[in-house]
């Protein structure tokens, strides 16, 4: 991509091809001989990291599409089947879901790097604009991908975001109907989002090619912001940049794996484990963390159309950056004022993200308006003004001078800014959890779970006892429809043999048919059957339960959570605490009180529960001491029952948890070895370049 190459293969077959299609020459001049500034720092490795992330998302996405069903009635179930039944399906899904977050994390670092070092300035304007286009495409792709699991957040996210277009004057309603393919978000919407979610990544890949092409025409910017002048200023891309990039990628994979194997649901919303329900909106609609700053801008404008314009404007304004900032000095390193305003801008963005996850009320609205003003002021006032009044420090004569001048002392600001960014990133990532509904219920006490932590395993005894409690108590009202009897004999589960699972299944009557006479009939359950539901449909369940619908329990431990608050959610990131669901379920089972506190008016047919949001629950106290007989000597108390059945339900929510943690350990050992080796290899390669 940087003109004709003098590369000539020696192999006659390759020579024959090369004369007709000079592809090897192209690759050689683009990725081997290509001169790269020798003073690039690690912020420049994010280009390689992003390329890798795009590849990872496309590969895992194509695979997931092999197993996914884009239908409103089947999508949620098909995602669960991927996670439960497909070989390594849980791994592929975790990679793809966390991968989206990691992709955005990397792209934000990449963008801030471009902003700091003035990488959008002449002659790189087109390169920068192509980047903005890629970012817009990523946002569209990420949004549509989030809709596909068809959980509550998927559905309501789709509803809210598509409704943005209803702000368009005159045509708004027609546009929204066109987007939906119906009168509301429904099956046609899901189908087209699936189609577009599959298409757009390839469009992104195409624009990335243009982006890289433009990069190779203009040449890379560098921390000094001066163009290479002599051969002393550059090193060949391979091995110098490739080794450095690979080391960067390897470090990034360590972070990525932390989420894939140990915190797969940290970046997601518990509500998305509840199947989409067009009749109930979750109390707090929150987009994925990477949209939060723009969501905050949208909400801070009191006018609908103006809010939508501001939100899109906040992204589009990036494309005009090359003409808003006309300062001749590129790198903020030599711009004392721009440097400070840059960091203020970073903080503004993070605070906007934090606000995006807060309810739009009271002081948050005012803060949102102030920060929205600051956001736009940075582009429209600060940068144009600085271009005129700022007196930059002298830039080095050449890149070689810059490298020579650098000795020690340089690492400290890098490290401290890295730490600041990590902390800020954690704040932003975690802020999403801040918006979860808490109501006025107290936080459930944190329990000690055998399955918690990086080496946690299920307690087999608890799983078997919990199954008994489910079967004898919960199963009279609650279904367990994602769990099959065969699962009871699978590795990492309650530890029954296949024969025991078959015997357990045969105690159930399962509806089958039609037979040769065309009639439905009942037969004993088989291992391949799923736990039968206690009610034939939702209406029957509601009639039998005073109007309330007892939720399916397969995923209940992942579908329930509670607010952790700052700074706990940042701490959780490191301690791998993710047992909000089990803590809540166990607390709920024990949280019944015979008499509501004075002043609390309990509605007819409800019961008082300390931990239930709103306290009035339709489910009567389900467990009493001595209710279920244990044959292994465990105490037959409500506390023990709750703990056992919650453990069992954690297993039903994630049957492959043990496999996940075990593979995670192996992957970490491998990645640490690889990273260390790459570090020394990179050091050796660069030894003669410094």
């Amino acid at each position, binding site marked *: 991509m940087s003109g004709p190459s003098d590369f000539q293969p020696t192999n006659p077959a390759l020579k024959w091809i090369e004369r007709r299609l000079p592809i090897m020459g192209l690759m050689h001049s683009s990725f081997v001989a290509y001169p790269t500034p020798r003073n690039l720092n690690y912020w420049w490795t994010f280009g390689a990291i992003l390329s890798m992330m795009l590849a990872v998302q496309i590969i895992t996405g194509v695979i997931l599409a092999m197993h996914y069903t884009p239908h409103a009635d089947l999508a949620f179930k098909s995602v669960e089947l991927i996670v439960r039944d497909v070989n390594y399906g849980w791994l592929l899904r975790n990679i793809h879901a966390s991968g989206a977050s990691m992709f955005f994390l990397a792209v934000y670092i990449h963008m801030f790097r471009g902003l700091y070092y003035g990488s959008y300035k002449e002659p790189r304007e087109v390169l920068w604009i192509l980047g903005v286009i890629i970012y817009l495409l990523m946002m569209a792709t990420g949004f549509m991908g989030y809709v596909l699991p068809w959980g509550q957040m998927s559905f309501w996210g789709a509803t809210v975001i598509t409704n943005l277009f209803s702000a368009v004057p005159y045509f708004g309603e027609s546009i929204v109907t066109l987007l939906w393919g119906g009168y509301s978000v429904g099956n046609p919407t899901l189908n087209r989002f699936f189609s577009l979610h599959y298409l757009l990544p390839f469009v992104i890949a195409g624009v990335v090619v243009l982006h890289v092409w433009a990069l190779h025409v203009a040449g890379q910017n560098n921390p000094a912001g001066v163009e290479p002048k002599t051969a002393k200023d550059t090193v060949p891309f391979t091995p110098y940049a490739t080794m450095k990039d690979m080391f960067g990628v390897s470090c990034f994979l360590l972070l990525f794996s932390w989420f894939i194997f140990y915190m797969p649901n940290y970046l997601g919303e518990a509500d998305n484990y509840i199947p989409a329900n067009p009749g109930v909106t979750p109390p707090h609609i929150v987009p994925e963390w990477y949209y939060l700053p723009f969501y905050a801008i949208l909400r801070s404008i009191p006018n609908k159309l103006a809010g939508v314009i501001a939100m899109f404007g906040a992204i589009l304004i990036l494309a005009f950056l090359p003409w808003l900032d006309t300062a001749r000095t590129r790198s903020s390193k030599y711009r004392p004022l721009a440097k400070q305003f840059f960091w203020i801008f970073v903080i503004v963005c993070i605070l906007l993200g934090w606000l995006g996850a807060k309810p739009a009320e009271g002081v948050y609205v005012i803060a949102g308006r102030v920060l929205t003003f600051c956001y736009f002021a940075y582009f429209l006032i600060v940068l144009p003004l600085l271009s005129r009044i700022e007196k930059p420090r002298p830039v080095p004569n050449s890149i070689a001078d810059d490298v020579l001048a650098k000795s020690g002392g340089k690492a400290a600001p890098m490290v401290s800014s890295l730490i600041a960014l990590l902390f800020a990133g954690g704040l932003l990532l975690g802020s999403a959890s801040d918006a979860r509904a808490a109501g006025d219920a107290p936080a459930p006490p944190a329990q000690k779970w055998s399955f918690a932590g990086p080496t946690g395993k299920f307690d087999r005894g608890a799983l078997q006892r919990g199954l008994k409690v489910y079967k004898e108590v919960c199963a009279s009202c609650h279904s367990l429809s994602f769990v099959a009897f065969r699962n009871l004999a699978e590795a990492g589960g309650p530890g029954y043999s296949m024969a025991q699972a078959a015997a357990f299944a045969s105690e159930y009557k399962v509806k089958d048919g039609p037979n040769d006479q065309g009639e439905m009939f009942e037969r004993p359950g088989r291992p391949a059957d799923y736990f039968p539901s206690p009610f034939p449909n939702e209406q029957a369940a509601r009639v039998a339960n005073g109007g309330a619908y007892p939720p399916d329990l397969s995923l209940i431990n992942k579908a329930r959570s509670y607010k952790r608050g700052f700074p706990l959610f940042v701490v959780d990131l490191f301690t791998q605490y993710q047992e909000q669901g089990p803590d809540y379920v166990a607390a709920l089972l024990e949280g019944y009180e015979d008499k509501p506190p004075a002043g609390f008016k309990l509605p007819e047919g409800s019961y008082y529960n300390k931990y239930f949001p709103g306290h009035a629950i339709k489910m009567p106290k389900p467990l009493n001491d001595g209710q279920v007989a244990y044959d292994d000597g465990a105490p037959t108390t409500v506390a023990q029952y709750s703990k056992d059945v919650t453990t069992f339900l954690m297993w039903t929510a994630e049957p492959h948890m043990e496999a996940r943690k075990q593979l995670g350990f192996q992957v970490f050992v491998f990645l640490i070895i690889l990273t260390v*080796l790459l570090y020394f290899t990179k050091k050796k390669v660069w030894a*003669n370049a410094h």
Partner: protein
Amino acid sequence: MTTASSAGHPTRRDFLYVATGAVAAVGAAATVWPLVSQMNPDASTVAAGAPIEVDLTPIAEGQDIKVFWRGKPIFVSHRTKKQIDEARKVSIASLPDPQTDEARVKAGHEQWLVVIGICTHLGCIPIAHEGQYDGFFCPCHGSQYDTSGRIRSGPAPTNLPVPPYQFVSDTKIQIG
């Protein structure tokens, strides 16, 4: 800028490069494994492929039924005396895929022929009671099978395969 190592004298640098490359290669290979493994049948498909039981009482002599096991049609034929004799009279050496009828049915249950009803040529489903041999005829490319499901003429290379099955009782078989 000289990175070339002296040939024949491995250096510590060479060792480091080789080690890094080897570890990276192992990682790449290990990454491919789950990406390929996911293509295999998933756990629910495997569980649904469990053995099935077929009641033979409704099948009259000379009749046959088609049942599905693991998504494949299984022909269960109740053969007549004439059909059994036809199958046993033929000279084994003259068959394209030599096999005795006795080897294709269960002793004591000679009247029952159980075969996977998929033409061994290219996977079409043959039609029962058609063709010159009173057995099966594949409409796609004209393969003809006899009353024992053995290939007699046409492009199919081998006999219709016999699935794993056993008699649970005189009137019930378990396939799988």
